[in-house]
């Protein structure tokens, strides 16, 4: 049954794509206006979905053409989808305001290819992500993943230089192999159980070899797209080479799409099929990502590469939630708090990382380089931006009252409650390493400039405000603890990850 507000789900997916089409048809002079109009509509839709969800207290469903699964295809938004829809709309909004400085096409200037492409791809990324969040069907999710790849890869090589083209091609190859493995897994599931609808499939799957093979194939494919250690090698060059606004989209949002799908698969499709050792393995990969990513980030000489490696590390935290949820379920404790912790980590990283990449873009514009060793003077030239970088960094470290603090607190208490002290240890060491490189950057940025130094470009005020606003979102997200309803849990099936065996 289509529920109240169900149509909003279709609008959430279609609005950005209508924006892409309109922007393409109207051309470069109107594309910025089309993008901002779409932003307003999309943000309103996301808030509308969240409102419908909180009011009704259960998942929002829209049946395409009125056909119910298994014949038709359903769009479904539960608590996880709604918070991601709103978070992505906010981050896209911040990035769009920032990008007006780099990619805005004021009247009178000739239409340029890179800005035009950027705005279309920004909307396309948004539409694909929304489709990932609301799809209720494994094949629609495959199409959404591929759309996300096609929208994300060209963002890497907007400048068209050889090195970025190479990074884009490497990223594309990883992503393609990842999605074909996902499709193979979905095909096996269809062959075994005769449906691809998530809710129907969850009722039919049994712990048997074909389900394990399918789960392993799909998870591996998605890990390659999410860049979890050791499949992360494509990420740093791709994210560090792109223009700042594009890096922000890629690092903050695109990798979350395939991660969200892993969450969907493990918690909604395969509860009862997943074994505890496999959850431990996923957690171990996450822990390695945290350690390796942070240590390598510390050794980077360039600011954008440092931030890109920090993304590798932060992706690791996203995967710590799997063994923790499995542990809580096995102990018959409430695993909802660990899921909330994982979602908070995703959202606080999205806002913080977008702010940090855009801050790095402003630093690059002002200094003409982004060597970490020569950041002196930037604190005087761009005070707001350095504050934003520090606030974003504080959220990555997990200082209160940031969203990162609340996320890590929830994950840490889950680790303690299930006596899995090793994950807690990794989180604490990761936090220490993160604070080392954030302080390194901030201290260098605060150093006084050499006499006679002047900024290369005067950065306008509004991109700085956008960066600071996103960083503040991340820093104040810890206030979500005061939220009266736990939105994440609405409309979620009460199924344990590790079955009752």
């Amino acid at each position, binding site marked *: 049954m289509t529920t109240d507000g169900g149509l909003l789900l279709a609008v959430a997916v279609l609005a950005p794509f209508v924006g892409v089409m309109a922007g393409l048809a109207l051309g470069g002079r109107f594309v910025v206006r089309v993008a901002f109009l779409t932003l307003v509509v999309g943000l309103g839709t996301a808030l509308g979905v969240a409102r419908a969800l909180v009011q009704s207290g259960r998942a929002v469903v829209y049946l395409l053409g009125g056909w119910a699964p298994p014949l038709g295809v359903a769009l479904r938004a539960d608590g996880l989808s709604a918070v991601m829809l709103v978070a992505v709309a906010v981050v896209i909004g911040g990035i769009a305001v920032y990008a007006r400085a780099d990619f805005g096409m004021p009247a009178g200037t000739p239409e340029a290819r890179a800005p035009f492409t950027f705005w279309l791809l920004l909307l396309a990324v948004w539409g694909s992500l929304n489709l990932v969040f609301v799809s209720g069907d494994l094949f629609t999710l495959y199409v959404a993943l591929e759309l996300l790849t096609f929208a994300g890869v060209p963002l890497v090589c907007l400048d068209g230089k*050889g090195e970025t083209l*190479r990074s884009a091609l490497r990223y594309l190859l990883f992503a393609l192999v990842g999605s074909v493995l996902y499709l193979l897994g979905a*095909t096996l599931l269809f062959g075994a159980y005769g449906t691809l609808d998530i809710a129907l499939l969850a009722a039919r799957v049994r712990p048997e070899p074909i389900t394990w093979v399918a789960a392993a194939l799909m998870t591996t494919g998605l890990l390659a797209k999410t860049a979890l250690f050791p499949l992360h090698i494509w990420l740093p060059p791709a994210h560090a080479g792109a223009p700042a606004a594009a890096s922000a989209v890629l690092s903050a949002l695109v990798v979350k799409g395939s991660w969200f799908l892993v969450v969907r698969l493990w918690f909604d499709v395969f509860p009862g099929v997943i074994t505890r050792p496999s959850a431990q393995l996923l957690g171990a990969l996450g822990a390695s990502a945290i350690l390796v990513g942070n240590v390598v980030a510390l050794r980077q000489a360039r600011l954008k590469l440092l931030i890109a490696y920090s993304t590798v590390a932060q992706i690791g935290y996203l995967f710590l939630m799997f063994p923790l949820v499995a542990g809580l379920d096995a102990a018959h404790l409430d695993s909802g708090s660990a899921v909330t912790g994982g979602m908070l980590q995703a959202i606080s990283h999205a806002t913080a990382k977008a702010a940090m990449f855009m801050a790095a873009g402003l630093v690059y514009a002002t200094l003409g380089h982004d060597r970490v060793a020569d950041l002196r003077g930037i604190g005087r030239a761009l005070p707001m931006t350095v504050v934003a970088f520090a606030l974003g960094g504080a959220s990555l470290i997990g200082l209160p009252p940031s969203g990162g603090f609340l996320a890590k607190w929830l994950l840490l208490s889950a680790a303690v409650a299930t006596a899995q002290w090793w994950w807690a240890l990794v989180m604490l060491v990761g936090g220490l390493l993160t604070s080392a490189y954030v302080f390194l950057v901030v201290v260098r940025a605060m150093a006084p400039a050499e006499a006679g130094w002047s900024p290369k470009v005067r950065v306008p005020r509004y991109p700085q405000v956008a960066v600071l606003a996103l960083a503040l979102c991340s820093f104040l997200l810890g206030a979500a603890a005061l939220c009266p309803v736990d939105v994440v849990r609405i409309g979620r099936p009460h199924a344990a990850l590790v079955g009752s065996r």
Partner: protein
Amino acid sequence: MDTPTLFGLAAAILVGLGLYGVIAHPQPLRKILAFNVIGSGVFLLLGAIARRGAAAGMGGDPVPQALLITGIVVAFSATAVAVALLLRLFGETGSVTLSSDAPAKADGDKPHG
């Protein structure tokens, strides 16, 4: 052994060959081709599943056939994007290697905006 099982096994072999190719070959064009071999394996598997699910006088279950067509379109566009990127890379750098320390115009210190 019935026909769908035979085709299923053939699909498994194709996926295995393609996966080997993607991992083992350093040249991007070969990787793209190997990706297509994996894709063919998946599509063959979908075809076999469609055939196995044949009912009500039809030659095959229409749902996997519809998925198969969509999958082919997606794989085709993916290949087109990859080849276009590859051609552009060749045009810019004169080489088609994926390793960054290639002799042709190694520009490790080049600034990225």
